[in-house]
């Protein structure tokens, strides 16, 4: 199996286990199995799903649940420009493809060397991730508390670790390093003063100094 497909599979397996956690929590928060299935299949944004369910579980209103889920879903819009060129010209096809634009699929596509491999990485990751996420959450909902706390196995750290590996290729050149540094700094600064989801939206401003730096370097190259 090609390396990018294998990496997509490994990432998706880990996400599938996280999906079990979602199933367990959603079941405990009183969601029915059909509701859990609809969320994983059609909402298909892990962070939003967890946020909504934990708001409900802690006695919050539906409005609060929807609000925090939407704040976390908003960043997927920022991934659109990164991957949209892999979806062809048809508006319908592009619109339907958008359903699979999330952290993991964008990350796997963005670290490939050429567009063809990137599109392949995107779609294989999308296929596996969607499948395992749904199987995982249904399994979690059915098995419930039999599974135990996934944090015992360090699963909550698997996701950031995977993203470090996916971040590194973006740090090869200085503009990327500056964007990562400023984006990360802005996120940390935003955490204490904003609801979940907002720090990630603020982080996108990190591209501005990265871009300015790249432009200056480019100008120097021309001179």
């Amino acid at each position, binding site marked *: 199996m090609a390396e990018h497909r294998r990496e997509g599979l490994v*990432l998706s397996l880990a996400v599938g286990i996280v999906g079990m956690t979602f199933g367990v929590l959603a079941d405990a928060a009183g969601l029915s199995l059909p509701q859990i299935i609809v969320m994983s299949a059609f909402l298909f944004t892990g962070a939003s799903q967890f946020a909504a369910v934990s708001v409900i579980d802690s006695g919050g209103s539906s409005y609060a649940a929807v609000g925090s889920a939407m704040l976390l879903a908003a960043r997927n819009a920022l991934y659109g420009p990164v991957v949209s060129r892999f979806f062809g010209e048809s508006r319908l096809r592009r619109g339907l493809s958008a359903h699979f634009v999330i952290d993991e699929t964008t990350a796997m596509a963005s670290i490939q060397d050429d567009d063809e491999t990137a599109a392949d990485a995107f779609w294989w990751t999308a296929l596996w991730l969607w499948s395992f996420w749904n199987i995982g959450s249904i399994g979690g909902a059915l098995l419930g508390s039999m599974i135990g706390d996934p944090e015992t196995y360090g699963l909550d750290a698997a996701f950031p670790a995977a993203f470090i590996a996916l971040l590194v290729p973006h740090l090869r050149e200085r503009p990327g390093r500056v*964007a990562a540094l400023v984006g990360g700094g802005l996120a940390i600064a935003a955490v204490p003063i904003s609801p979940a989801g907002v*720090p990630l939206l603020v982080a996108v401003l990190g591209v501005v100094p990265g871009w300015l730096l790249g432009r200056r370097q480019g100008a120097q190259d021309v001179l």
Partner: protein
Amino acid sequence: MSWTSIWIMVGGAFGFKVFGVLGLGRMTESAGRSFQVITALVPAALFSALVIVQTIVMDERLVLDARVWGVGAGVVAVWRRAPFTMVVVLTMAVTALVRWQTLV
């Protein structure tokens, strides 16, 4: 949770994704090269923030716990050019171990 709020979330999340691909995506594709350069930097800025948020944030507060050790081990593994699977498994193992140690 009501079905109504679930469908609102489904519609809203899909709306963001479609806006990203059809709105922002189209815009950057037709705009000049400098816009595409900016777009290429988005993963660097967002994934860096994602790693940080997932490592040191808990319930909207900054928290240092076992995850920091695990992710630290992951960083070393990435730096030593360990394969992807190894990075993920090592991080989980170290996090679980530190968590278990602090419980005992």
